[in-house]
């Protein structure tokens, strides 16, 4: 018997006003799998990601994360979200707290750890992203790459079952991208299931198990990185790949 998937989203629909942004999308992510989502802007890829932790409420469909049905009204969404880490394009660190404060807030308030234990776990998470010695710094005192790594530490400190990355390197200066991708690669090697929305094709080729191409609210095509990047079957995928590779 196959192990239970970590993410099992079926038939997701989402509307923004008159706009039908997700038209019945399925996404299943297995243990230790890294799924990469690409597509033009407005294709619905970020919205799909945000449906997976219910930052967006799907209009129809089901989202089951680690066996918990997120759309069931009886589900304690705050409890469930500890198991779903999310990293945003604009970092969204709390500017009034130190790096350690950012990482430990949910450990203390959601996971209910006493301060000493939360600090210990927080420091361990910061060490995993290579920022142990920056624990006492405020976000304003850190580079963009360091801020994004603190944001990753904030999510992994809660020991999630899956990590969602929403264009994690798009807001970074080119020379800072590498450090964030390095942390993501380490996470991947540790066996974390990940869903990554990004345009970092090099990273996708090296690290992804599967690449999904989305356009206009549907998954147009999916396959291994080699299949999608070298020999896409669909005309739309080909057009998109050639367009981003020209840059």
């Amino acid at each position, binding site marked *: 018997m196959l192990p239970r998937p970590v993410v099992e989203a079926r038939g997701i629909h989402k509307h923004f006003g008159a706009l039908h942004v997700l038209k019945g999308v399925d996404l299943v992510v297995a243990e230790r799998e890294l799924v990469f989502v690409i597509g033009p802007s407005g294709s619905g890829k970020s919205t799909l990601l945000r449906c997976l*932790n219910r*930052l967006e409420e799907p209009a129809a469909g089901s989202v089951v994360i680690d066996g918990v049905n997120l759309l069931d009204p009886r589900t304690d969404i*705050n*409890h*469930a*979200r*500890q198991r*779903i*880490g*999310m990293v*945003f394009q*604009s970092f*969204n*660190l*709390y*500017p*009034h707290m130190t790096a350690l404060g950012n990482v430990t*807030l*949910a450990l203390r*308030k*959601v*996971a209910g750890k006493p301060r000493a234990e939360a600090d210990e776990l927080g420091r361990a998470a910061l060490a995993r992203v290579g920022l142990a010695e920056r624990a006492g710094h*405020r*976000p*304003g*005192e850190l580079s963009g790459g360091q801020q994004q790594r603190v*944001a990753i530490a*904030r*999510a992994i400190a*809660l020991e999630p079952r899956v990590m969602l990355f929403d264009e994690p390197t798009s807001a970074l200066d080119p020379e800072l991208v590498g450090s964030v991708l390095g942390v993501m690669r380490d996470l991947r090697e540790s066996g974390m299931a990940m869903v990554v929305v990004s345009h970092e094709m090099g990273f996708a080729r090296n690290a992804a198990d599967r690449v999904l191409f989305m356009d206009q609210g549907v998954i147009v095509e999916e396959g291994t990185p080699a299949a999608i990047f070298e020999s896409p079957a669909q005309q739309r995928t080909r057009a998109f790949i050639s367009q981003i590779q020209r840059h």
Partner: protein
Amino acid sequence: MSNWERFLDTFFNGRVMARYLPDIAYGTLVTIELAALVIISGLAAGLALALVRSLGFRPLNLLIVFVVDLFRALPPLVIIVFIYFGLPAVEVSPSGFISTWLSLALVLMAFSEEIFWAGITSIHKGQWEAARSTGLSYGQTLIHVVLPQAIRLTIPPLTNRTIAITKGTALGTVVAVSEILGMASSAVSNSYNPSPLTLGAIAYLILFLPMVIVGRWLETRMTWKR
């Protein structure tokens, strides 16, 4: 008597000042008491209204906006007179002190609600999303993430507004509150000399200058690098 001597005798008459100093000191205590009550209750009510408004319950928010606009539009003196002379018609007779307190607290509530609300809404949506994505509840996000940032932003406008409204305690003189101005004016009528007003002005300076300075200090201390 030269003009200069006449000026000194009119506004800085030592004998009159010494005679009425205890009255002005008493008035100062009343003003402090009134001001403290107005600030505490006004800001607390304003923050509470802003928090309720952040829940986004539409009918309630329309009511809040109506009340806030009402008390921002009405001159505080009109509200004082309404409460003091109007309420007895419905068998409620608040004292001048309570009328002044209530009126100024309502006005401060209205203005501070708008300031707190502006502070809360100015916090980027990403802060909410990041906090909620780690499992923090709505209330926890508000208390630990949004409010600490919002309140820092609101300190400068809030301090200015609080000082402006708290100075309105002088309006209490109209409904016979024995605060600084009330005590000073009756001393002027009794002594036929305006020097008690000078004393009163000094008392106001002693009270409000520190507030202005503390406000400035908070303003510089509360900024932080983004």
